[in-house]
């Protein structure tokens, strides 16, 4: 139902579990699944999601301890008397969710939206960040 996003040690390959196709399986409404880039570094995880046509006030992000859920409503500015020459009928709602590892600090999620790309940054819990250990002399 949701994707697995877990920072792993460098020698283990990342796996993504996803049984859904592009349209979600919600019975009341079908959703578009935005394509995502996810990368990790020492400080945390960053997601970039393509959500064109979504305004900032139409994005909903929910993060609890284990799940990150992202929704966005697409708004098409319609002029009066506008008729389609060709337009695919597709859902007007983006939705995708991810399973998060316990290493991530979901209370400090940062999100920004630019040119239809939503960037979400979740830092690793401070106490779990790799730390350089100074070796004392003597």
């Amino acid at each position, binding site marked *: 139902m949701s994707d697995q996003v877990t920072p792993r040690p460098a020698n283990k390959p990342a796996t993504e579990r996803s049984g859904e196709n592009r349209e979600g399986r919600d019975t009341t409404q079908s959703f578009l699944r935005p394509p995502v880039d996810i990368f990790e570094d020492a400080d945390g995880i960053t997601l970039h999601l*393509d959500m*064109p046509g*979504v305004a900032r006030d139409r994005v909903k992000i929910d993060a609890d301890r284990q799940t990150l859920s992202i929704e966005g409503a697409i708004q098409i500015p319609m002029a009066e008397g506008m008729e389609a020459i060709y337009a695919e009928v597709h859902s007007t709602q983006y939705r995708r969710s991810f399973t998060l590892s316990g290493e991530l600090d979901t209370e400090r999620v940062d999100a920004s939206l630019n040119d239809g790309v939503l960037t979400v940054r979740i830092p690793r819990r401070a106490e779990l960040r790799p730390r350089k250990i100074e070796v004392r002399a003597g």
Partner: protein
Amino acid sequence: MKKMDPKYLRSELERGIARAWEGLTEGWREMLSGSSGALTRFRRRASKGAEGNAGEQFPSWSLLQAECWETAQSVIVRVEVPGMNKEDLDVSIQGSTLCIRGEKHSEGEHKGRRYLLMERAYGRFERTVPLPSHIDRKHAEVTYHSGVVTVIVPKTETLPPQRLTVK
């Protein structure tokens, strides 16, 4: 005995791979013609370390969804192209075809950064949208907002069709 020759085996392997690649691209070509160009190929620039990198060799594709609407006065085209700089977008109308070209830059290689998932396409792309013929392309307006390119082209013919009497 010839079949055990490593040179023969390697050329067979290369032929097999070439055939498989041809088959793959044929499949893509069929898909392209079926989806009115919506599935757009993104070409990445060759980078120095690209030879052994499978990611560079395989084409990257993305759906650049497009819609074409009309009002009494104009034709409106919307194409989804998220994450672009305005300066990297090239929009032109040739005859009655709208052409949107551009380059979507990736974040670049960063040391200490490891990708877990990479679904978004980046690189050079081109998307064409056929337009109706009765348009005034000199007065087209283009805006880029929320990752959507909107082109508004006024129509040249807004009068109803002329009825002719059959003698």
